[in-house]
């Protein structure tokens, strides 16, 4: 299957890059990312279109308005009957005109997670005023992040299998569940025949996808539809999350997911994410898109040591390497978008990584994801979209929820109301279950 092959290559590329970084040295010229066959070895990757589909809203501006107002997308789970489960709250994408973005025949063929991404891709292309039909089809690539695949679709088909028999399982189960389905459907929908792949790195995947997008741009792709979504709030998805992940089981919308707070008790899950249009800077300029939201200045990834190891978590090293990749000093970073896992140990580890790099209370830190829940494959992509809007408007959105910062967390967490600042750069951090750790530096 070509999707699997493409995904494999992307994974290997990430692994290779991680191997270089694992030496612990700060590399300044990113040799791991400059392929020998690169046609555009130093190409810059800019973001020209945002397609947000999140609990905080559909469309970048609706999302951004919610974030600035502290309007939560968290509510009682309605996607499935969760009454019997110890999880009642999640971030769910509000009702919107899906049919405006997804052609009718695709609906029964795709999972909700893919439909959200198809809507996101359409929004991103419209935002960038880009007409794919006018561009060379093999120079348009698609790389998304996915953590759950099509769980709701799979649940329905498994139910049919067990209750009615194999003849009742739909033909589309063969592709709709698969991590690469979203990438494939976006590629087909918009006639983008360039390199395609999927990154399955849990919450870190949204950043890893951007790094792969930059590699592809340097190898000749003029644009990459990237970012990611996830949606796993069906019964099967909720059970799977409850059994392995530190979910907050409190019923209070405002106090369940409170990262860095003394009372942190885990996080709430959510659905959705953001699809971003990333373009090679010269290609964007060539078609008149000369005012992008911002640029991918740096990236690094790493992996946490095995449990019980005495080695430190990867986050500090990864953040430092992302800055080095961007050729920036910590003092040149204006805001940090935190991973904000929401468990005391993970929050403390992140706070320590941030203060080790920037000094105690050395940089404004925010985590708007308390308004959406953690979106897994879509989470870091949404953080990037939010950070780009933040850079555009010179506003650090507040983190809603936390009231009293936990012991040892020496970070300048922006709470209460948004903080207006002249912003040039942002560091976005992401950690995925099992040890995935990635960071990107964005510039305006």
């Amino acid at each position, binding site marked *: 299957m070509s999707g699997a092959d493409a995904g494999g290559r992307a994974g290997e590329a990430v692994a290779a890059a991680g191997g270089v970084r694992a030496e612990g040295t700060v590399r300044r010229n990113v040799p791991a990312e400059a392929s020998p066959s690169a046609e555009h070895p130093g190409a810059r990757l800019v973001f020209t279109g945002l397609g947000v589909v999140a609990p905080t809203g559909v469309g970048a501006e609706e999302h951004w308005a919610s974030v600035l107002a502290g309007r939560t997308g968290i509510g009682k789970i309605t996607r499935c009957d969760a009454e019997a489960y110890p999880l009642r709250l999640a971030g769910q994408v509000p009702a919107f005109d899906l*049919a405006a973005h997804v*052609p*009718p*025949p*695709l*609906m*029964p*063929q795709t999972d909700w997670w893919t439909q959200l991404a198809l809507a996101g891709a359409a929004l991103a292309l419209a935002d960038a005023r880009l007409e794919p039909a006018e561009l060379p089809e093999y120079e348009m690539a698609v790389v998304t992040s996915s953590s759950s695949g099509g769980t709701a*679709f799979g649940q*329905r088909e498994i139910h049919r299998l067990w209750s*009615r028999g194999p*003849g*009742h399982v*739909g*033909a*589309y189960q*063969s*592709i709709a569940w698969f991590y690469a389905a979203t990438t494939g459907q976006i590629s087909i929908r918009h006639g983008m025949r360039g390199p395609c792949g999927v990154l399955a790195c849990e919450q870190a995947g949204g950043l890893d996808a951007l790094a792969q997008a930059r590699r592809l741009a340097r190898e000749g792709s003029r644009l990459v539809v990237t970012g990611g979504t996830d949606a796993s709030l069906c019964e099967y998805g909720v059970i799977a999350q409850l059994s392995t992940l530190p979910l907050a089981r409190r019923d209070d919308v405002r106090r369940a997911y409170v990262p860095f707070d003394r009372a942190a008790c885990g996080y709430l899950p959510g659905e959705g994410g953001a699809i971003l249009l990333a373009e090679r800077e010269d290609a964007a300029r060539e078609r008149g898109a000369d005012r992008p939201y911002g640029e991918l200045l740096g990236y690094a990834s790493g992996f946490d040591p095995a449990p019980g190891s005495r080695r430190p978590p990867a986050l500090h090293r990864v953040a430092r390497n992302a800055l080095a990749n961007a050729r920036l000093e910590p003092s040149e970073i204006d805001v940090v978008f935190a991973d904000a896992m929401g468990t005391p140990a993970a929050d403390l580890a992140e706070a320590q990584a941030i203060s080790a790099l920037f000094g105690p209370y050395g940089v404004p830190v925010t985590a708007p994801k308390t308004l959406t829940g953690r979106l897994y494959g879509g989470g870091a992509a949404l953080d990037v979209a939010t950070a780009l809007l933040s850079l555009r408007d010179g506003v650090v959105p507040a983190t809603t929820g936390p009231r009293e910062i936990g012991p040892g967390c020496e970070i300048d967490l922006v709470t209460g109301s948004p903080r207006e600042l002249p912003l040039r750069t942002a560091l976005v951090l992401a950690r995925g279950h099992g040890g995935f750790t990635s960071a990107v530096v964005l510039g305006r």
Partner: protein
Amino acid sequence: MTTNPTFSMDELQRLLLTDSVEGAAVDIAAAADTPFQELGYDSLAMLELVCRVGREYGVSLPEDAEKAMTTPNEAVRYIGRSLADARLEPGLGRTA
């Protein structure tokens, strides 16, 4: 539309819908001679159609049935003929 009384365009329209999304489908009657590919129905959609005919009418269409059904009109004719050959009226053998 079709001269075959045993299987109608409306039936085909219904079979191309699935219960995952109500009412979301192309109006195939308005494009009865347009290739399914152009209407957005790919080979998996055709496989799904063949499976649904099997489930609802108890008639197994051959594996290469989709080659004989490149447009809605062709599909109506082909499925109608297959049902007649199996001497089944529409609805007979349909599962609840």
